């Protein structure tokens, strides 16, 4: 797999604050890598380290295979950054903000005007280009910042909370555009704490906390890794009757409280299992197949909560063996990147 960004054991401190702590992750080329984490997880510092805007105290950063500290010129000119605050010059017009960037990033002067119009049009900001940015709404500023990041046709785009301050329609439009960018072969590294916007967008996920990566990998592979066993929830008017499921073919185990969480070899078993129960006179009130989401992964990584719900996971609190017998194990909440 081609990697555009690779960080290995990167640590950085700001005074007493440990911003990055042995952070390791990679961003594959032409994919969207989402850095997920709460405020203070180190996402912004990571972006800064990738372009060489800060030089980490320890560890290795490679962007396009180059060390951004000594090779800053070769790295930054290939990066487009949108920071959490749009970082625009309020006293300049939208056009002049874009022109400044185009000049700094050495866009060919012969095509600069055409690029400005093209990028502004892409984000629907072309009609406001001659107005002073100080009068822009938050959404317009974000769209101008996004336009600016694309002016010099960068290979790597680094977006720090790119939808902050946008209304839902604009947010969705921005996320669609981000997807388009990877289709054009660009690599995107995006920071967010909004699970909803990362869901469905992330090809590669890095869940961060306190400057460390808790979990890293391709979204689908991570789901399979953390939830290897398909599950569904089922409820009945007499919950005890659901215990019969453990003897049925394809059922690997159940975890029952009021309703039952059923572990099966694949979700295609559900209709037959439901039919079997119904034939036995069990009155079923609800059946809900469980597709793990990024949200599940996020909370599982950060708290271990999701994993404790999964009796068949090697790190789970209680394992059920096929046939229903329980095996108690030691609980753990730590989920490492290689677990």
């Amino acid at each position, binding site marked *: 797999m081609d990697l555009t960004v690779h960080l290995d054991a990167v640590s950085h401190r700001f005074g007493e604050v440990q911003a990055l702590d042995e952070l390791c992750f990679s961003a594959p080329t032409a994919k969207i890598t989402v850095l997920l984490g709460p405020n203070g997880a180190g996402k912004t510092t990571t972006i*800064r380290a990738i372009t060489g805007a*800060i030089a980490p105290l320890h560890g290795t950063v490679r962007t396009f295979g180059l060390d951004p500290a000594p090779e800053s010129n070769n790295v930054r*000119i290939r990066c487009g950054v949108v920071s959490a605050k749009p970082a625009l*010059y309020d006293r300049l017009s939208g056009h002049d903000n874009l022109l400044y*960037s185009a000049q*700094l990033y050495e866009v060919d002067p012969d095509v600069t005007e055409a690029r400005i119009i093209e990028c502004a049009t892409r984000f629907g900001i072309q009609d406001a280009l001659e107005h002073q940015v100080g009068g822009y709404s938050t959404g317009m500023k974000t769209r101008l910042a996004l336009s600016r990041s694309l002016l010099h046709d960068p290979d790597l785009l680094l977006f720090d909370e790119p939808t902050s301050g946008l209304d839902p329609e604009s947010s969705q439009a921005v996320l669609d555009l981000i997807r388009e960018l990877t289709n054009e072969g660009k690599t995107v590294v995006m920071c967010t704490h909004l699970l909803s916007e990362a869901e469905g967008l992330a090809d590669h996920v890095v869940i961060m906390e306190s400057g460390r990566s808790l979990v890293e990998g391709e979204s689908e592979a991570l789901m399979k890794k953390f939830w290897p066993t398909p599950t569904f929830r089922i409820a009945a008017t007499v919950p005890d009757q659901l215990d019969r499921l453990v003897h049925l073919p394809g059922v690997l185990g159940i975890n029952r409280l009021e309703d039952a969480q059923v572990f099966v070899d694949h979700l295609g078993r559900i209709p037959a299992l439901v039919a079997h129960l119904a034939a036995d006179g069990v009155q079923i009130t609800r059946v809900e197949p469980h597709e793990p989401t990024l949200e599940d992964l996020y909370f599982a990584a950060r708290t271990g909560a999701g994993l404790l719900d999964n009796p068949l996971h090697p790190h789970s609190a209680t394992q059920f063996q096929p046939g229903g017998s329980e095996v108690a194990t030691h609980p753990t909440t730590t989920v490492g990147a290689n677990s």
Partner: protein
Amino acid sequence: MNWRRMWIVAQTDLKQLIQARDYWIPMAALGAMFFLIVPAILLLTITQIGDVEMVSQISKTLKVLPQAAQAQIQGSDPAGRTAYALAVFLFAPVAVVVPLTISTAVGASTIVGERERGTGEFLAHSPATAREIYFGKLAASLIPGYFTTIVGFGAYSLLVNLVVGPSVGGWFFPTPNWWLMVLWVIPPFLAITLSIVLRLSAKVKSTAAASQASGLVSLPVIMIAYSQSTGALFGGLIVGAIIGAVAWTIAALSLSRGFRSVTRARLLGVANEV
């Protein structure tokens, strides 16, 4: 260093300054007051109103001027000689104070302002090097001050020649010493002041703090520049040339070290010392 990129940084700062009426209107007023209004009032009082007592008092003070300076004074009557002395010697240091004040005001906020507005993040991720940013900011701070001086100098020359010229036998201004001061002595003093001000602007936490600190630090430099420029005028061309050369040397040393104060961490506001 990529000079083109440095100039782009400077140009963009200047564009913003032009948009900032709240900044340049007071500065233009300051220049007008020092280069036009105050000299016009004084010189007209002496040459047109002919206040005998006042002219005689000022004439007496001219005797304290160095011999070399006294020898330069032209004019056949006391009013003309007094007006000439005021025009050439008294207002000369104003040409130093105005650009230093204006450039200090611009320079004080230039780097800390980027940080406060959040635009430091854009610059920190950009391909511009710290040196290009520093010298771009330096140029953007120096140009408004020096531009005001040149414009003020032109206006002042016109005023002096129109008001005092008839009393001393025609247009006489600028004198060689004034040319030397404007073209050779003032620029290095501006550079010295700005090297200090930009260093402060990079290190302090807010624009307000930068303005306070810059005012405090630049005051002694302004006083030195004032006295040295006066000395340059009194002492003749050679003295002026020497003062300028020494100032240029100090400026070069100060600037060559000053660019280190601009770091990407400071633009981002994450440097430990910020």
